[in-house]
């Protein structure tokens, strides 16, 4: 097995075993999808209008929840030094970690979203648009989040600072993602898919390099 796959599978295993990853994010996402209707009221027509945006914000927040530990856990227990000295470059390591985070968080969130959209009474086409937009857009959340995680990995309160620096960067993903749901509901197309896909692709390709630099700086500190 290549070092890349070794790191990827280890991170996947960790996310399943240590309550840090997949399950917590899913629970958080589901709770957001439950609490909003409880606050707004059970009017399914109103909920359907807001559903896309709320579920997208919920998914982005849920994915960020486990992101602060992406590098931090390995930094604190010394694993990150060993990873840095391994045959795998830090860029490769960052990419493996981003991929593992998406597989353990973004993908399950995407798969859960059609079930949660039942709470908002979304129509069939809107559910498909939401699921598709999350499938396209959540890699961007993992990728941009990884940059934030690499910058805050040595901070004690990194978990609080991370959303503050990452969420502004995720504005395009949330806007175009929720936009795809709106397009499905109204029938008007503005090409949100294209923008979302471009943003997600660019983020996924560039962020390993930036994140690796962040890790390097923190290891040297």
């Amino acid at each position, binding site marked *: 097995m290549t070092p890349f796959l070794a790191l990827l599978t*280890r991170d996947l295993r*960790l996310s399943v*075993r240590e309550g840090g990853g997949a399950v917590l994010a899913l629970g958080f996402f589901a709770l957001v999808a439950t609490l909003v209707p409880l606050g707004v009221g059970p009017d399914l027509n109103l909920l359907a209008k807001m559903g896309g945006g709320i579920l997208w914000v919920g998914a982005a927040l849920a994915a960020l929840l486990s992101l602060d530990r992406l590098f931090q856990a390995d930094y604190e227990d010394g694993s990150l030094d060993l990873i840095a000295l391994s045959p795998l470059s830090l860029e490769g390591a960052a990419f493996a970690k981003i991929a593992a985070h998406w597989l353990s968080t973004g993908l399950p969130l995407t798969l859960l979203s059609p079930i949660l959209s039942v709470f908002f009474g979304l129509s069939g086409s809107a559910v498909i648009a939401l699921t598709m937009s999350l499938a396209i857009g959540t890699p961007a959340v993992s990728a941009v989040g990884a940059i934030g995680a690499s910058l805050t990995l040595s901070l004690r309160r990194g978990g609080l600072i991370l959303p503050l620096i990452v969420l502004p960067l995720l504005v395009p993903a949330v806007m175009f993602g929720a936009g795809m749901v709106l397009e499905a509901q109204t029938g008007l197309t503005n090409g949100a898919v294209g923008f979302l896909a471009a943003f997600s692709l660019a983020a996924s390709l560039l962020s390993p390099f930036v994140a690796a630099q962040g890790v390097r700086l923190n290891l040297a500190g």
Partner: protein
Amino acid sequence: MIQSLTAEKLTVQRGSRRLVENLSFTVKAGQALSLEGANGAGKTSLLRLIAGLLPAGAGSVTLHEGDTEISEPEERGKYVGWLGHHDALKASFTVSEQLAFFSKLYGREGDEIALLGQVGLSRQAELPCRYLSAGQRRRLALARLLASRRPLWLLDEPFAALDTVGKALVARLIALHCGEGGLVIAATHESLGLSNETLRLGNAVLKL
């Protein structure tokens, strides 16, 4: 195989603090260098610098392998077997899973069972790391160091948390590694059990 490591006019800097200045030394294949010094003297930082994790404030560290010279920090790291302060263990991984991951990460697989036997952890192979004692965790870290099969060992307090038997094991492993032509640089309060030569610089003491 690496013939020698040369440090020339090194400045070890952590943040804006200068810990060591103008330090030069050479370690040849088969030699063990022990770094001594008070807490905060920069032993760990020097080890991190040699590993290429910390950039040098000034000067250079070069590995000589045949005719090639390796001085690029990230390139240097690929020759380093690292034993740090922390044991780098995940609570939910079993001992053998933990070792297997690092073997794969370092591109070397196969003899995990033998390595666990060598450090005296055969019985704990299927035990999750959360149930290990501090000494057992240290032994697992040693097995990982062996699994990396790197020529240049950088050891930060290799005797910490170990009992007498464990300390003897470390000394034996170091002697074995040197015997096979490896290089060892260790920050420690105790003797490595090899013939040492002392070299004083600043408030850090280097023994060769």
